[in-house]
């Protein structure tokens, strides 16, 4: 059995990491990990609701 990690796979909301167990030429199990914190929800707290779209439309 082999375990591989692919990191980064993606740039959506930061980066995606995959860890995959391969057994007999097939994927046996897999884990997807977002490796970057977004935190946008905390940025808009206590802000004027009329302006949050401009900040949050980035994600």
């Amino acid at each position: 059995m082999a375990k591989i990690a692919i990191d980064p796979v993606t740039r959506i909301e930061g980066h995606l990491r995959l860890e995959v167990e391969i057994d007999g030429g097939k994927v046996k199990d897999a884990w997807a990990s977002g490796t970057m914190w977004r935190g946008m929800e905390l940025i808009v707290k206590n802000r004027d609701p009329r302006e949050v779209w401009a900040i949050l439309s980035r994600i």
Partner: protein
Amino acid sequence: MRAVENALGITIPENARIIRNIISGIQYVQDHVIHFYHLHALDWVDVTGALKADPAKTAALAQTISDWPNSSPVYFKAVQGKVKALVESGQLGIFANGYWGHPAYKLPPEANLMAVAHYLEALEWQKEVIKMQAFLGAKNPHPQTFLVGGMAMPIDPNSQNAINAGSLALMLDLAKKAQDFVEKVYIPDLLAVASFYKDWASIGGGVPNYLSYGEFQQDTKSNTTNCWLPAGFIRNRDLSKVEPVDHKKVTEDVAYAWYKYSDDDKKGKHPWDGESTPNYTGPKPPYEFLDTSNKYSWVKAIRYDGLSTEVGPLSRMLVAYASGHKRVKEVVDMVLGKLGVGPAALFSTLGRTAARGIETLVTAEMLPVWINELAANMKKGDLKIHSGDKWDPSTWPAEAKGYGFHEAPRGALCHWVVIKDKKVANYQCVVPGGWNSAPRDAKGQRGPFEESLIGTPIADPKKPIEILRTIHSFDPCMACAIHIVDKEGNELIKVRAK
């Protein structure tokens, strides 16, 4: 924005509704074409294989599948020359870091050359058609003209400084250009490539639940269910039944995510009560592997009715198909017929990629319809673009809660807001990339990416192109072909035989 409008009871004007539809529409079309050619195609198309192609045979192939004018032997010879010069220079540039020559590549050289030619054409095409968004949104990405209550832009057929008759005519030209390329290049290429990879119609299916919030609103009611692409939830791949969507069924737990809930990490919270307090418990980088028996991701376990659920074009097309959407049904049946497969083939990596093409075609067809809808409204003298009666915070209640459904190109997106004393008291964004890349939940159910990989054949663990095919089929917004190198070009993939 829709969440805040929903919380404050704001109804947007008809023109704002139509303009939002046009902006979303061109985003679907441009995003999906870019995804197919620039983010996904090289999982299936061997660029170096194109060098072995006979340009005359490539031209013959191209002419049998489409009447697109760029299909002469001379044209394909020129493209081949470009690729050859790149390969010989040793600097592959945009084509660097592919698994070229991998045995999982199945296309004949001529199909590889045709696809590479269209990869390059699509780059030119996309920068043209997205000008439609420049008219309506001021720029791409991140349009600047949105506004709580409508849009922040003037429309007036007779003004130089507004969306006028001239800009509408130019947008119709761009819509035609968008539709032509999708009909004559994207769809024929998709069918041609897919016909060599039919084994991928039984790989990569993953979780059996599909969600769409509905998009392209046909009336101005907040979170209306009257959408051109319908809202719905499909449970356990049962296409005989589409359940109505209830936003209260969306929950997130953080049993395996790097957050700390004030009460219980294992309890699924509705986003109005959501918390985002970070709690990183993973290893200090650089590390070899994560401890996946504990928290292992910054993505929360988003679930619908407690179930791991896929979002995106496949979910939208399945919901539309199962709801009896006439045009979607026609195109889905056409694609299935041409590939000689049944509807069950949709639940796969190939199905996901095909659904994106189907959605692009039907959406591109609607662009002129929506532009003409805007023109007709303006012609009637309706130039209203913003509802400002609840702009002033003194008109707001002391406390309000709202949610705003949207279907982004990549899938279901909803924001939930709680407003107290004129300020945001709580805000949660539950985005398509989160749904699909979600980790395990408290019950141990895998997320959609994770589940879709189980059973995938891997020819060479050092070159796991098969994993990328399935993960890319979800369109997780990846940089083209540069999937496993860091910015210095060092390979980051780690392989360890256990």
